[in-house]
């Protein structure tokens, strides 16, 4: 199995969640995107909506994000949003 993704979800004034995961699904302005380890570097504008982070064990963490970006680089996924919180 490929090395897991390092994911962090940050809001303007605090870090919402961070940890390792096997998959991230987010909604960008162009549609839903799923990211697995080994994804090419990407910088996308998020549409307001839900971000699903699937952990290695299969459980998932959901967070809502508004006004944000998604950046993928070197198996590090950062979801940056002005407002974000776990659901």
């Amino acid at each position, binding site marked *: 199995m490929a090395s897991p993704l390092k994911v962090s979800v940050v*809001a303007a*004034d605090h870090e919402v969640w961070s940890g390792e995961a096997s998959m991230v699904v987010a909604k960008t*302005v162009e549609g839903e995107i799923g990211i697995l380890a080994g994804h090419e*570097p990407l*910088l996308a504008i998020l549409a307001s909506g839900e971000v699903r982070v699937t952990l290695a064990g299969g459980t998932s963490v959901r967070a809502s994000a508004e006004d944000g*970006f998604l950046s993928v680089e070197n198996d590090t996924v*950062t979801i940056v949003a*002005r407002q974000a919180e776990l659901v």
Partner: protein
Amino acid sequence: MGAQLRVYRQKIKSAQTTKKITRAMELISASRIQKAQARVAASTPYARAITRAVSAVATYSNVDHVLTTEPEKIERAAIVIFSSDRGLAGAFNSNVLKESEQLAELLRGQGKDVVYFLIGRKANAYFTFRRRAFERVWTGGTDAPEFETAKEIADAVLESFLRDASDGGVDEIHVVYNRFVNMLTQVPEVVRLLPLEVVEGVEEPGEHEILPLYEFEPDVETVLDSLLPVYIESRIFNAMLQSAASKHAATQKAMKSASDNADKLIRDYTRLANNARQSEITQQISEIVGGADALASSR
């Protein structure tokens, strides 16, 4: 009680009262620093993430964007000054103001006009007292900055950046604020926000590494368009938080030395008062002895 003694007692009392106030202020800012520092720390991941993203776009793409390219001729520059609402913080405010004066001089030397955006009552007072013009001012709330205020400031600054120079717009934006290094040190810092000068947070690619080729969604320009205002916001918010933390630290330091000085004053005046009391007693004794002598010899 002799007049001299009374004067000393009054001075002691007044120093004691002052000490109570300064001690209280010291304790208050000591308790607020923790919170302010925690907020700086909490906002750091966001600022770092945004900075990295901006660096990525600026480094790995070569689009011409109004926010990243340097205009040929810079006519006007804006300086955003982060001061505090309250004084009693040692050199906190004078440091920032001094730094901005130097910057303004430098910019004027390069033939640029300078306009000011002020944050905090102290900067406002400084400018009003000297009858100098400024673009806008935000007061209140420098102790516990709100993200909303940062957004408002960023909007105003960006708006004037995007306006044409002929309409009074600016071509360059600088910020001046106190950076919180630790409890003892706060350094005034000047940063040029726009046009972009992103250097921090980018890891220098090693010699054998291949530069990551970024994909942008929907496209580079749209990403830049929406990323840069957010970047400016986060930088301004960060500056506000740093400035707030520095202010509390500076107040604590200033108030601590004020309390120490009050202690010293109280001690000195107590010595003087004791001296005065003693000499009063001595005088009274010698008066009594002198009187008794006179009575005895007149008999």
